[in-house]
């Protein structure tokens, strides 16, 4: 982050974002100093130079990812866009077997956005980064015209790097017949929470946005041979399992009765004709590993606060590379990937 005017910190921050905050001048410095710098404070950010210069651990591979966050509303039950922006990138790194280390934060602020709300989002990012064990080491701020003048907001882009041990190889190509499919917890929570807000439906559903660092470290520390792993976001479990089946050239069969879904989300989906298999989460993952390791994996996952409903929901076998489900009433059906737009954008 750049700081052009060392005295800018003395200025009193405006209560709404305006164009000068993105102009690179004193107002930008003031914004950086009064909001970002303190919240994210760490040794790599502090020089506020053009790039963060980071140490490279020996003998490791680098994982590198990026994602953008455009969710509305900005604050929702169980989280906000800032928590989402950290969790999404951290979880993407974790899923490739990396230990997440550093992330970036790019803010596109809409003119008129409330500065106090920005502070809340930034504080939430700082808390989530701490929880996830990553540092926010560089960033950028731009200001644009609001898409909706009545409701100016912000968009966030995060990129992240993590380090992977040389001997770790997690990829769908390693999925084998005989493997077990484990889901880390209740499906659909984030999606239903966002949709509930947008539709002003009163319910108790809370987003599951969470960094899965502790859970995944637990699995790796136990030496489990994870073949493939993916966080369950847009497209839902159904779409991921179809991608897995097709990459592995194997058949995946799941049991509806063992899919973890909360009663609230079930009810919500029933009313709206939605299917939790196609709904996104922001703090859940699906893991494929050898059948003999499944009980151990579930035990470890359930010890994490974000994995208490982890369960074995299916298995991999030889056969056509697609996904089928035994339904709760005893039917068999093909589980297709999500088609078309289907549902509103949720992250």
């Amino acid at each position, binding site marked *: 982050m750049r700081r052009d005017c060392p005295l800018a910190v003395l200025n009193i921050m405006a209560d709404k974002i305006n164009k000068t905050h993105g102009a690179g001048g004193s107002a930008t410095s003031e914004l950086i100093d009064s909001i970002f710098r303190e919240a994210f404070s760490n040794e790599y950010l502090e020089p506020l130079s053009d790039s963060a210069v980071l140490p490279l651990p020996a003998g490791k591979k680098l994982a590198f990812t990026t994602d953008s966050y455009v969710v509305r509303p900005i604050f929702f039950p169980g989280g906000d866009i800032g928590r989402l922006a950290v969790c999404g990138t951290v979880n993407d790194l974790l899923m490739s077997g990396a230990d997440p280390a550093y992330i970036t934060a790019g803010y596109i602020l809409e003119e008129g956005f409330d500065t106090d709300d920005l502070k809340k989002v930034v504080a939430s990012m700082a808390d989530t980064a701490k929880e996830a064990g990553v540092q926010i080491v560089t960033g950028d701020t731009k200001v644009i015209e609001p898409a909706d003048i009545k409701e100016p907001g912000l968009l966030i882009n995060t990129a992240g790097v993590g380090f992977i041990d040389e001997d770790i190889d997690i990829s769908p190509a390693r999925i084998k017949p005989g493997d077990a499919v484990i889901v880390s917890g209740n499906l659909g929570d984030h999606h239903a929470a966002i949709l509930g807000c947008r*539709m002003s439906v009163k319910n108790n559903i809370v987003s599951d946005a969470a960094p899965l660092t502790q859970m995944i470290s637990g699995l790796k520390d136990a030496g489990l041979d994870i073949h493939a792993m993916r966080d369950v976001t847009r497209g839902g479990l159904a779409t991921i399992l179809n991608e897995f089946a097709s990459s592995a050239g194997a058949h995946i069969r799941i049991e509806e009765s063992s899919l973890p879904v909360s009663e609230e989300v079930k009810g919500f989906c029933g009313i709206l004709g939605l299917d939790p298999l196609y709904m996104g989460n922001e703090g859940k993952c699906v893991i494929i590993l050898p059948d003999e390791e499944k009980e151990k994996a579930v035990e470890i996952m359930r010890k994490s606060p974000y994995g208490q409903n982890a369960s074995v929901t299916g298995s991999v076998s030889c056969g056509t590379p*697609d996904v089928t489900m035994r*339904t709760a009433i*005893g*039917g068999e059906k*093909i589980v297709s990937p999500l088609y*078309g*737009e289907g549902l*509103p954008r949720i992250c």
Partner: protein
Amino acid sequence: MNLSEAANFLKNYNGRELRLMEVCGTHTAGIVQNGIPSMLSDRIHLITGPGCPVCVTVTDYIDRLINLAKDPANIIVTFGDLMRVPGSAGSLTQAKASGADIRYVYSPAEILKLAKEDPGHTYIFAAVGFETTAPVYAALLSGALEEKIENIKLLTSLKTMPQAIRRVSDGIDGFLAPGHVAVITGTEEYRQLASELEVPFVVSGFKGEELIASIYALTRLAEREGKAGFINLYPQAVKEKGNEAAKAATESFFEKGDAAWRGMGIIPDSGLYIRSEYKKYDAGSHDLAGDSEPEGCRCREVITGKLPSCDCPLFGTVCTPEHPVGACMVSQEGACFNSAKTTKNY
């Protein structure tokens, strides 16, 4: 009779071959979602009838909507499913990409708010549906009237079920009565249809076990050829007289008229139109009868239950959920969309 006994009977049914039709899009989706086709004997065929409102909408309607969208004074408001339905020259999605202001809503009530805050535009709501959704549109009109909101109009394609059921009943041995429609209209007209058409009707709920119970009951009634019969297996929601307040709301804003259905042409008195005293709210919904299907598309026969989706030459090759050609592949309640979801290597 519990679930497993009913399921066992349906799997091992060995009586006369039966063609049972569902005429409610939510039933179609529920049957697929619960894997019910895999639970039936191959002597029981479930046929999807004209129960998906988007699928029975003619291209004239879509074309009119697109023309309205081209006027920058108008903002078109719609539910998602309608966006990708092809008209004779493009879809709403294409119109939107070319700059038309077209918005999704989750409930019609949102439009009142939008229109009130933006008096400079006319908000045109694509009011597509059956008896189920008509009361919701009536509530919207009532709200507009009460709050004196002048910049809302509806382009309606509202239809009533019984007349269409008569049209498609040839060769059908039993009907699952449209559950959501019956919640509003009540059971009486389906009881009458059963005796008029001499086929059984069962009113069904939407959960897997409710659908199995209803298909079981319908099979038991239908295996005796030529006998009518009527059972309401969804009594917790469907009453004999239906929802009288909702019916009254519909009646106060809408009147009957002829309507064009895809695949069936004009069916007398099967449409609902905004009453003439409220015509200022109508965006030109009358006389939208022209219907031109894309080349090779056999939606007409699919909608009327004459052709299984998978026998359409476009199914799964040219027409897929990602690139739908006909309306039945667009809508989540459509016969082809639901067939595609359950077909291996389509």
